[in-house]
């Protein structure tokens, strides 16, 4: 049942990343590796060392026994062996240093790479459009940024060097075998296709399983994230049991998939071992027959058999490493998926910077749909002169917030165009455009930083004085001063000792500090009491003088003095005018106002 949880397109907002949330389909293996390879630019030298050092290690591993043999021969023959012993010590010392260097370099190289991949992934995430985030779970993306990338580092830090060493050994032993006897070598190689088939079968299976494991892990992160952020609700509704049940579903699925993955990958080595033994017996018999016919000497057959053992072991291990690769690739694929998401459209060629936006805004036949076929705004046209204070009102879900989403280009219009100072929004540089707006959103997201830094988020580098001024204008100064740490008190993530209204005040201060030419307040004062709001209004009045401002509010007393009130209903402009005009019109607005003031 869990698989159908993919985001489909609900009426309202989009589900364009349905593919992204899709099932456990393994993707293009080679393409994934190639993509990762491209990211290694800049650490290729280090990677080379990671590959080369194990080769040196296998050389020293071979030299050791060689010298031991010489020493024993020397003792046997009664010759002096001091020099040889000294050589052996040097070899071991060299081996020590190589190993030390190998681990050191591998660690730094792999972690540097992981760091780069993380940074690039975050950079990619950061450039994704708002619509992307609407459809994914926070915990899942977090899992990609941590767990999945960690899996990639396993490839580099453990498997790659090992793989090199093994390939090196296999090549060496193969050479010796060929030199000893060509025909017997063929007999040894006869088992190789079996090994390949086996590996293919197992790996084909584990790859899908490991991928599913990562997906379930991501979903689990999502569920934990959701239930911790919503713990108040879980508790209020005594939903602990249900949350736990859902968790147990995921937990059980994770354990099941994990178990299957481990069991499947565990088949590889034992079966391989049996194949090796078969091959060994095959070669023994063949060798015996050949020796009996005098085709090879018995001595060659016996040493050949010993070498064949040295050959098959690393071949097995290579297969096993290939298995480990699968977890990594499963992680890598989930990382790459994000890179494949379509980022916010780049600025059009010739996009212009915004120069002192005066704030003339024109909506020209704007239609918009979050998901195809469900229009939210239908052919909306209106224009706003610089410095006007515009109120957007209308029933819930009428499309007020959508207007804001389009202005700030969180979304782009489906049809029509929006002009700022006569130029289509899409022809501006996005960064400049957004800098024109000081926005207070419905959902007041604050960061886990000090109050001062939260306000300063609106404009980097603002002085303390500017911060306090903004706070004063937003009516936040008094209560900030009253808290224990004042401006330096850190806002907790779910900060309980700050009320929703107080959070809104800080968000307003933040937007004021941005000093933008267009101010947007989307239900910015819904949790603020009316008296505080009136104080904010007074402050805003001086601040918004000369600035275009958009205000969405349900409390109509908030917007009564707007220059123009635009009433949106069912995606269209239903009424437009000043408070007095609309009251005189006696339409929907008048009705709404009367209802609210209790006079109906």
């Amino acid at each position, binding site marked *: 049942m869990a698989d159908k949880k993919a985001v489909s397109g609900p009426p309202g907002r989009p589900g364009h990343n349905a593919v992204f949330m899709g099932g456990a389909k393994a993707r293009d293996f080679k393409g994934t590796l190639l993509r990762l390879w491209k990211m290694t630019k800049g650490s290729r030298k280090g990677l080379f060392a990671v590959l080369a050092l194990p080769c040196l290690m296998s050389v020293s591993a071979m030299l050791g026994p060689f010298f031991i043999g010489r020493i024993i021969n020397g003792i046997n023959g009664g010759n002096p062996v001091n020099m040889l012993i000294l050589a052996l010590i040097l070899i071991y010392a060299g081996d020590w240093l190589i190993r030390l260097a190998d681990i050191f370099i591998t660690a730094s190289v792999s972690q540097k790479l992981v760091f780069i991949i993380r940074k690039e992934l*975050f950079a990619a995430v950061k450039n994704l459009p708002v619509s992307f985030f609407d459809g994914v779970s926070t915990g899942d993306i977090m899992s990609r940024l941590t767990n999945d990338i960690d899996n990639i580092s396993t490839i580099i830090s453990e498997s790659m060097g090992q793989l090199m060493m093994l390939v090196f050994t296999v090549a060496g032993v193969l050479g010796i075998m060929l030199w000893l006897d060509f025909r017997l070598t063929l007999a040894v190689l006869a088992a190789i296709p079996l090994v390949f088939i086996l590996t293919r079968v197992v790996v084909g299976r584990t790859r899908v399983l490991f991928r599913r494991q990562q997906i379930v892990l991501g979903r689990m992160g999502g569920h934990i994230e959701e239930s911790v952020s919503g713990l108040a609700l879980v508790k*209020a509704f005594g939903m602990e049991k249900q949350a736990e049940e859902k968790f147990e579903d995921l937990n059980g699925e994770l354990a099941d998939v994990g178990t299957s993955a481990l069991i499947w990958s565990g088949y590889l080595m*034992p079966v391989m071992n049996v194949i090796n033994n078969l091959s060994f017996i095959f070669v*023994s018999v063949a060798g015996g027959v050949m020796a009996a016919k005098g085709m090879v000497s018995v001595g060659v057959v016996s040493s050949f058999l010993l070498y064949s053992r040295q050959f098959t072991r690393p071949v097995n291990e290579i297969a096993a490493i290939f298995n480990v690769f699968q977890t990594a690739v499963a992680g890598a694929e989930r990382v790459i998926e994000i890179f494949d998401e379509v980022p916010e459209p780049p600025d059009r060629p010739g996009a212009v910077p915004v120069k002192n936006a005066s704030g003339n805004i024109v909506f020209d036949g704007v239609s918009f749909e979050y998901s195809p076929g469900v229009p939210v705004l239908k052919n909306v046209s209106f224009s706003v002169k610089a410095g006007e204070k515009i109120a957007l009102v209308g029933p*819930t879900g009428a499309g007020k917030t959508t207007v804001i989403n389009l202005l700030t280009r969180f979304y782009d219009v489906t049809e029509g165009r929006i002009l700022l100072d006569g130029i289509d929004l899409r022809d501006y540089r996005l960064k400049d455009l957004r800098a024109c707006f000081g926005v207070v959103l419905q959902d007041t997201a604050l960061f886990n930083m000090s109050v001062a830094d939260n306000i300063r988020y609106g404009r980097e580098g603002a002085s303390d004085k500017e911060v306090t001024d903004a706070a004063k204008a937003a009516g936040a100064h008094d209560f900030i001063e009253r808290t224990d740490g004042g401006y330096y008190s850190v806002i907790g993530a779910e900060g309980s000792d700050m009320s929703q209204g107080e959070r809104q005040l800080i968000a307003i201060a933040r937007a004021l500090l941005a000093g933008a030419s267009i101010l947007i307040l989307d239900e910015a004062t819904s949790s603020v*009491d009316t008296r505080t709001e009136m104080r904010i209004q007074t402050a805003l009045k001086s601040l918004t003088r000369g600035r275009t401002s958009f205000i969405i509010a349900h409390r109509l007393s908030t917007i009564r003095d707007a220059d123009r009130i635009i009433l949106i209903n069912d995606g269209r402009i239903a009424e437009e005018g000043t408070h007095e005009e609309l009251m005189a019109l006696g339409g929907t607005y008048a009705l709404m106002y009367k*209802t609210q003031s209790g006079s109906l």
Partner: protein
Amino acid sequence: MKLILSMIKGHIVLFSSAIFFLTAEAVCDLLQPALMARIVDDGIKNGDQAAVLRIGGIMLAVALTGAVCAVIRNNLASRTSQKIGRRMRSMVYGKILSFSFENIDRLHTGSLITRATNDVTQIQNFINGSMRILIKAPIICVGAIVLIITQTPAELPVVGVILLLCSVLIAGNMIMSYPRFGRLQKNLDRLNDVSREFLTSVKVVKVFGREKFEEAKFASAAGDLADSVVSAIKVAALFGPLINFTVNISVVVLLWLGAASGVSGVGGLMASINYMTQILFSLGMISAVLNIMSRAVASAGRINDILDEKPSMIWAGPSEARGFKDASVEFKNVSFRYGSSEKYALKNVSFYAAPGETIGIIGSTGSGKTSLINLIPRFYDASEGQVLIGGTDVRYADMERLRRFVSIVPQKATLFSGTIKDNLLWGNRSASLEEIKKAASAAGADAFVSSFKDGYDTVLGRGGVNLSGGQKQRLSIARALLRKPDILILDDSASALDASTEREVTKGVKKYSEGATIFIISQKIASVMGADKILVMDGGRLSASGTHEELMKECRLYREIYDSQIGDSGNGG
């Protein structure tokens, strides 16, 4: 470590069977080289084809047995480690759910996620890994030592010194890496927190153009994580090769001693060098496992932190808990402070709400309205005074009963991913579609839900992002209604509704939950005007209470609020 051991103990049958098959597997493994040698010595060298086939047959049988054992062992080991992992995740998650708000305020979400997933995985890996080589390495090591003792007793002191040195090195490795792994996990927490914060505030980041800032924050967390990983691995880099080197040097010592004693000892010398190589191999495995173990132990410590975290609230058991006489709510001289804060959020608040009454609460931002109602379902405990429901102090109530009795619609309408129906069923899982619809229409949500293509089966995105603020609020109200609570608390939960919608919703809610005591917090005076009693909050104190008419007469603050919203509008009616 105690946690890990107790976990293993819980699955001792599986664990020991895995160990049993591992032992059988190890024996088969160890037999193989001997058999191979015999094929060469007895068969090939003598040209005896029959012997080749016979010994080959035995070898194959041993290999097959070994393979079967290995498959079974792997099966058991995988099941055990996954079961243990699953159990631990359940424990951690269950514990998190049992936390009171005070606990949660202290712990970061990112850290909780790391602990429930990554930390458990570390332990799981260790347990799984240990079942693979726990037996093999010591068997080989002990076997080699025994052989040295019996065959070349003269070399015992050398071996003893080597083993002692290696033990010291391995111990040193563990001691040094343990705290580093702890730091590593902590940095992982931070990375999780930073990314979570960004993900939940995307719009704010984008609109203020602070992507670079967030990127720098993330890069610093990712950088710290990378550094701490490197620092942990460097410890292993320091000790691992050193252990190798020590054993290698001992081979040199043996050779040197052999050279001194002359030709006679060559056979024994070769044998003991062989054994030394085996010791080296098994020590390598042991130190690798122990390294994984220090990471697992560090993770176990972090999980223990969660499991040991004392819930800051003790609930009466179902048997000793007292019931509620009726749906009345009484505050007796209640004062309240958050955690260690010095500031009182509520000071000396007393009031009585009779069953079935509607109570309005109004007051300025930060005046303590939400703090006040948070005490009713016992999200927090009053610092002083008493909160009584139906005559019972909430501290003596059973949690489940209390939370069923009281239903709250919080200020922030939080919805969960899943369908609309799933979300509403949170209120009452056994509700039929008809009941759901009834509650939804009372909350004014049925109309818009029905207009969706998939109706109640519409899948909501993360946190219900695909709904407007007002739609979320109405669903949130419907969810609370579905519980048919005796006490219903609406915490400014209609703030995103337009006035006429709100009016309908309020009417619907009152009709739906007839007989229930209802608390309505609002900024809009029109929303509370019709209440039986209105509490006016100011700076954490109850400044006045009464009906609208009484307050208009007696309370200046209330009148001011009224005037600011309605009274002086002149053209309001």
